[in-house]
């Protein structure tokens, strides 16, 4: 009988991907809750790692008719000392023995691993991003050239010699252009030939060959090919993200948490667009310093409030480490809005002259207490200042936020601006 061996190892994997996504969609609410809980405990950069989450099995239950209770009979192997008629005490829990172990009735948690993309998608969903925004995340901005086959027209600099010669050869072979070697042989033969009749024959043949060689050129304009290039969108490879935060005593834990989520979101945006993203944390009271993430969010600090110090620090760092031509610069500032009045002019000047011209995006987030309604917050000194700059036409995104779901609209401007640019371009 014939037998076939099939090597399936090279078949495309993840046949279950589709089923898995359906399962996730179905378990969405539950998984989302789990993702939220997991992401709260993570650092900004780690938000993108996938990971294990666990959800209660309950919502995912597949019911079946099954029986329970009643009289049970069971045959077991390995009797040691029982004889017929013995009565064994029931194990604790009364009712019956746990003889149905392994039947899927346990309401335990259902644990499984999410991939990085699944995790991020759910994380973004949690922030109530509109679909448009999610699509924008995937887009790229600058354009580059890429080789794309050959064309019959183009600039002389782009002539592809190898391709042209190749085609010419093919054409010569196809049309049977006499080879120079053949002609040389005939001529040699003519030299040595004595018989007149044969000479005439050879001469005629030579003539014909030469005429044919002339009719069929060695290289014809038809053969010429040019290297073709296409413009393709190309991501600018790197971006730097500045996180500026007021850490004076008036910032509460809740405010810091809001700010952290805001930075996380911006980070996710950027990593989806740029291959390499750096983060610089600058915290400030009445003086600013660059710190690591732990200190940034959890380090103790106290003092007055001078926003200009942070902006100054940022512009210094940009000048020394991140050349605007090589880096896309994004900045996100979070504060409760306090600033000393005397500082305002300097802040405004730094922003308009040093920072905004080199930044892709500058977002300001004014955080409030969880219970405080945003409408009741009086305009703070910083808010008033930024408001004025904005009305002068500076590209600033600003938002007052006191709960998590209000964070996303800050980014609205980012996408809005992009759309306008596209319109202008077309």
């Amino acid at each position, binding site marked *: *009988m*014939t*037998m*076939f*061996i*099939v*090597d*399936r*190892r090279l078949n495309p*994997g*993840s*046949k*279950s991907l*589709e*089923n*898995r*996504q*359906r*399962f996730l*969609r179905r*378990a969405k609410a539950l998984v989302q809750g789990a993702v939220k809980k997991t992401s709260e405990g993570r650092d900004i950069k780690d938000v993108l790692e996938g990971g*294990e989450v666990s959800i209660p099995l309950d919502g*995912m*239950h*597949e*019911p*079946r*008719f*099954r*029986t*329970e*209770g*009643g*009289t*049970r*009979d*069971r*045959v*077991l*192997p*390995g*009797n*040691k000392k*029982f*004889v*017929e*008629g*013995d*009565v*064994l*005490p*029931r194990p604790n829990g009364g*009712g*019956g*023995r746990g003889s149905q*172990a392994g039947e899927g009735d346990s309401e335990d948690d*259902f*644990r*499984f*691993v999410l991939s990085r993309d699944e995790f991020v998608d759910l994380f973004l969903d949690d922030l109530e991003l509109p679909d448009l925004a999610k699509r924008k995340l995937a887009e790229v901005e600058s354009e580059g050239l890429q080789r794309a086959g050959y064309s019959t027209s183009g600039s002389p600099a782009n002539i592809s010699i190898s391709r042209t010669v190749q085609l010419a050869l093919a054409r010569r072979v196809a049309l049977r252009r006499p080879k120079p070697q053949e002609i040389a042989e005939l001529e040699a033969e003519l030299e040595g030939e004595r018989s007149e009749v044969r000479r005439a024959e050879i001469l005629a043949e030579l003539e014909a060959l030469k005429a044919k060689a002339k009719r069929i050129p060695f290289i014809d304009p038809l053969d010429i090919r040019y290297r073709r290039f296409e413009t393709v969108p190309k991501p600018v490879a790197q971006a730097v993200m500045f996180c500026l935060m007021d850490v004076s005593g008036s910032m509460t834990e809740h405010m810091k948490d809001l700010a952290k989520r805001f930075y996380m979101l911006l980070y996710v945006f950027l990593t989806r667009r740029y291959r390499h993203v750096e983060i610089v944390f600058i915290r400030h009271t009445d003086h600013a310093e660059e710190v690591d993430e732990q200190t940034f969010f959890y380090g103790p600090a106290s003092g007055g409030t001078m926003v200009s110090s942070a902006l100054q620090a940022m512009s210094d760092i940009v000048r020394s480490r991140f050349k605007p031509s090589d880096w896309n610069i994004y900045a996100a500032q979070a504060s409760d809005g306090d600033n000393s009045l005397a500082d305002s002019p300097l802040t405004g000047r730094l922003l308009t002259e040093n920072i905004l011209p080199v930044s892709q995006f500058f977002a300001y987030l004014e955080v409030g207490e969880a219970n405080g309604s945003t409408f009741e917050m009086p305009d703070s000194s910083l808010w008033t200042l930024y408001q004025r700059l904005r009305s002068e036409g500076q590209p600033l995104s600003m938002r007052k936020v006191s709960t998590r779901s209000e964070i996303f609209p800050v980014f609205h401007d980012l996408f809005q601006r992009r759309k306008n640019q596209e319109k202008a371009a077309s």
Partner: protein
Amino acid sequence: MTTHERLFEGADWDFRQLQRIHDACEEIAHGELGLDTYPNQIEIITAEQMLDAYSSSGMPLFYKHWSFGKRFAHHETFYRKGLMGLAYEIVINSSPCISYLMEENTATMQTLVIAHAAFGHNHFFKNNYLFRQWTDADGILDYLDFAKGYIAHCEERYGRLAVEITLDAAHALMSHGIDRYPGKKGLDLRAEEKRARERREHEQSMFNDLWRTVPSGPAKTTEILNSERRRALLGLPQENILYFLEKTAPRLHPWQREVLRIVRHIAQYFYPQSQTKVMNEGTATYVHYRIMNRLHEQGRISDGNFIEFLQSHTNVVFQPEFDDQRFSDFNPYALGFAMMQDIERIVTDPDEEDREWFPDIAGSGDVMGTLRQVWANYRDESFISQFLSPKLIRSWRLFHLHDDPAFTEGIKVDAIHDARGYRRIRRELARQYDVGFIDPNIEVVDVDLAGDRRLVLRHTVVKGAQLNETDARRVLQHLADLWTYDVSLVEVDARDKVLKEYVVSPRALAIAA
């Protein structure tokens, strides 16, 4: 005895060697054991593909549904944590018979697996009466392909949600979408005429006027006659709930009926497998054991490789005792293999007891003939009740526990491995494998056509085991959604006493519009 060339050396294998291994196994399986198999197709897969196969019941193609994703996620987590090993192979009851082999297996393991799956299981699939009766090995792959395409098409056309709801409902009723007995074929006119004529002749020849004087019972009322007629027209009582819905649910769309039909067919395809776990694995294990031993005798596998085989074979047929932490239930490989070997012993070397218990086969001498006969004509339940020998009961030290909640003192030991207990133990163990006792006996008994179209189901409670209430309600909810009118289920005991009654109304979001 001629010694053969080694099939392989060490642990590595390549495709040429697999071919040689297969041919060597085939020579023994067909030539010496007299097995009759479908053509084989052997596929090499990776661990990830094995996980994929796990989640779709081992089938190479299947329609899409979230529950398979759930199973996949579950297996994957367990596998990654190292809590679960993967099977060495999966084999599919189809023609050609497809065996999936893991790429990580050593050459010895591949030999074992080919002998086990490509010959043991394959022979069983082709010859066992249940598989012959209920499955169509030639058509199953095409059918699955059709099912996958059809369901994808429905999703495109009617929306994923609608299809998902229908499938959820169908899956919930899957265990009650099976024909347990082959259907009656309708007679053609000629046969019917012939039967009527024979009956008439019989009546004439047996005529006796006396019968007329025998009083019959009270005449049936019109109401009873009507309801009997109605039930007969609907084909009630019907235990195949999915079939009943497919044919008679009033407001299902044609595509929904087709989806129910697909789920029903697939459930039916797997029905024999659940009834023959012990036999199927026993057959395959016995076959691989015979083939491997023979290969070793012929010198085709080395002593070292043979010891590797013995080690994994021993693991496969390991049966922990009831008080062992690892014990969960009978290991079908162990029980099946032990019984097959026991039959071999009874056939070749019986003692007095065997002659008394198994007069038909004891000492008949033809091991393979007897086994082939057994493999073809039994399922787990009948196999155990027929062939579990007292000797095996003794060596496994089987005992029977009877747990009656009404008996408050505890659990009674009803029988042990002694002369008084053999038959009882054999009967109880056979029942443990009897689908008639495992699956609750639920039937559609009536539809209130004149009134509110309520569908009436009945669960005949056996040994006091009632339905789990949460689950029952959920399943009935699915059922009501498909039926689109109220559904009621009564649980009655053997004396027709009603123990519990459920009534469920369809949800507002009815599937059928």
